[in-house]
């Protein structure tokens, strides 16, 4: 409006000056007409200039409103008619259209103070945060005999006949800049050293904190920080994502209840430019895992490596094979090497994606040197083996059932155990899961016992959508 007013004033001034000057000097009609023509041209130029400016400002405003969603690139295109009655589709014959994609406005202090679900704030670009937040909770109820409770030798030692939060985790993840992404996971869970009520603690710990460098030369991707090393098939899987309630026995015996995790160091991996999928990962870590290594120094680091390949059989499923090794040093300066071979096959129903049949097996060998027994000289070299296999049948999106078999030797002491664990799973939605698992274990030697246990697990996820991996 103000612009139009200015135009009118300009014209009036021009016209007045022209009229006055015309009367004063009594110029002839032709001269006056020429001057009027010039004034008209000047006026048109001013108008065009203002219109152009207005158009630019409108476009700028529109771009600001759509917050960074630029209009589609201009291109001529024939109009594709879109017959519609209610909400007409408006395919631009010019190929350009405003972009009324969702608006993201910065939250006010009042918005932030209002109680609401944490993940709503975590929507990138919607709540003003530029990363994702996910929360997962994993609760386990463990029922077994009083003998197992007394001896604290159940699968979840010291937590027999209890309901406990195994792991409640808060994860922050997202892109740091165009070259890197980062993840931080903090978890809390009940741990018990000897099963006595006084020793039960809710421990909070930093599970994972690492950056991934995405743009290194030669197609290298590298992670630096605290992480779960790429070792084996199931070791990389978080507690709440495991296919069964508990981690297979061979992993807990060789590395501890949570497997080989919580290692700080550097890990690089490559996908080879070949016709088949080959991934190679190499890592150098402190070696903080106390069960297998524990030296905890880069002077004698834990070195891990994994080769993984994948064969796609289209409608007949896919087969993954991995070969891993981890070698490190114990606090008493003895070397431990663990090698593994894993195989996983999955067949997925063609039309609806169900049923799904999964067959998986992993075998591990532990080769470690320990001090010689009393009265003997030199070191002893121990060779221990173990493995597991499971089959799972996903009937549909909600129901699945399976069975796992375990057999393992103890890494240092003399003894071995086997177990069989049938289980059933119910997922009301993608974010909520319940499992019921029975486990029968028989041990010999240092783990002499017969254990019958029943696990009930409830897991949930708040926030960022989990992406299933093969």
């Amino acid at each position, binding site marked *: 409006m103000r612009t139009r007013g200015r135009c009118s004033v300009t014209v009036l001034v021009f016209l007045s000056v022209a009229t006055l000057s015309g009367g004063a000097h009594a110029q002839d009609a032709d001269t006056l007409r020429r001057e009027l023509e010039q004034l008209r041209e000047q006026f048109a130029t001013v108008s065009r200039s203002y219109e152009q400016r207005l158009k630019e400002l409108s476009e700028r405003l529109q771009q600001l409103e759509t917050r960074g969603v630029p209009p589609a690139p201009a291109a001529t295109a024939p109009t594709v008619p*879109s017959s*519609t*009655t209610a909400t007409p589709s408006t395919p631009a014959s010019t190929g350009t259209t405003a972009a009324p*994609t969702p608006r993201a406005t910065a939250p006010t202090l009042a918005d932030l103070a209002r109680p609401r679900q944490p993940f709503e704030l975590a929507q990138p670009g919607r709540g003003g945060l530029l990363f994702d937040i996910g929360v997962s909770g994993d609760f386990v109820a463990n029922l077994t005999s009083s003998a197992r409770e007394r001896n604290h030798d159940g699968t979840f030692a010291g937590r027999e006949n209890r309901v406990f939060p195994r792991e409640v985790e808060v994860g922050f993840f997202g892109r740091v800049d165009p070259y890197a992404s980062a993840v931080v996971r903090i978890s809390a869970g009940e741990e018990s050293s000897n099963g006595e009520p006084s020793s039960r603690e809710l421990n909070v710990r930093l599970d994972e904190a690492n950056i991934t460098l995405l743009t290194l030369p030669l197609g290298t991707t590298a992670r630096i920080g605290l992480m779960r090393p790429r070792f084996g098939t199931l070791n990389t899987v978080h507690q709440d994502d495991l296919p069964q309630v508990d981690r297979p026995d061979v992993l807990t015996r060789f590395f501890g209840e949570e497997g080989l995790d919580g290692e700080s160091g550097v890990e690089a991996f490559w996908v080879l430019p070949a016709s088949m*999928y080959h991934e190679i990962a190499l890592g150098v870590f402190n070696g903080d895992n106390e069960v297998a290594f524990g030296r905890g120094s880069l002077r004698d680091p834990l070195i891990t490596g994994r080769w993984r390949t994948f064969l796609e059989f289209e409608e007949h499923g896919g087969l993954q094979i991995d070969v891993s090794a981890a070698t490190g040093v114990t606090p008493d300066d003895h070397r431990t090497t663990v090698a593994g071979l894993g195989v996983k096959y999955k067949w997925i129903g063609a039309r609806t994606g169900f049923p799904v049949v999964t067959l998986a097996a992993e075998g591990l060998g532990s080769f470690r040197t320990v001090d010689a027994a009393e009265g003997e000289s030199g070191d002893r070299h121990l060779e221990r083996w173990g493995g597991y296999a499971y089959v799972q049948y996903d009937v549909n999106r909600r129901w699945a059932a399976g069975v796992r078999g375990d057999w393992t030797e103890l890494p240092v002491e003399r003894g071995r155990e086997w177990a069989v664990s049938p289980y059933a799973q119910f997922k009301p939605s993608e974010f909520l899961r319940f499992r019921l698992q029975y486990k029968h274990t028989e041990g010999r030697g240092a783990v002499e016992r017969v254990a019958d246990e029943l696990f009930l697990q409830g897991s949930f996820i708040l926030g960022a959508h989990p992406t299933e991996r093969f």
Partner: protein
Amino acid sequence: MFRILIAAALALAATPATLIPASAADPLRVLATLPDLWSITRALVGDLGEVKVATRPGQNPHDLEIRPSQILLVKRAEILVRNGLEEDSWIDPVIESSGNPRLLRGAPSVIEAVRGLEILKVRTGPIDRSLGDVHPSGNPHFTLDPGTLPIVTANIVAGLARLRPELTDRLQANRQAFLDEVATAMRRWTDTMLPYRGEPVVSYHDSWPYFYRAFGLEELGVIEDRPGVPPSPQHLVALIRRMRERRVKVVVVESWYPTATAETVARAAGARVLTVPQSPGAVKGTDTYITHLDALVTTLARALGE
């Protein structure tokens, strides 16, 4: 050991890779995340290169599982065409695992087909998972409205031409030919659907608002009112009542969903279930955009006409 570690650290701390641009003689190596984008991009690229797709036709993108073979596809691709809404956000961890930084979100080699489009069903107000597995940025199935193709194809061609300027003219010519073909087909589809304009239809999953808009159908309701969560009995009862009142003839179900609930609803409301593939290539002979839409329009018109 320290020497090895220092050498490894130096190698890893090297500056970001210099990406060598492809030469004019090299064929385009394009990866599309979803089959609809694959069929459209293939029409635009023609014989200028190869277009692969990261998901199998007929596979439900909502339940997608990352497979190593997808990582290999990403590794080999030079350009990525993605939907741009949440429909294919599963590709991000695949890219991060592939060691191909050219396809990271925001890179010049990544084309987002949605740019500049009017998005339907953008959620407003508080959003949480009690609404199911919702798409907060709006419904992503926009290619089911042929009216969106001028913008979608302009986005794709602009992205391809940005990386291969020497191919601009040929890409534009392919685009023009494709849009001409779609415009011709659209007249045919419009004529086929004309008798059913304003007809109420019910969907199992909320995949079809753009399709209904394109052909003047009314979406009376969606069985799966909260995506990924089984519908409540109250919702189904109310939906069946409305279907009876409006004499709904057809319940549209994507081929990757089980039909049991839809069958029950349709039976109670006196309608019939129409199982159709939502993406091209799921049924033999429908691997182009036009043959896919041809099949959808013909099947739906036949069902509505019965």
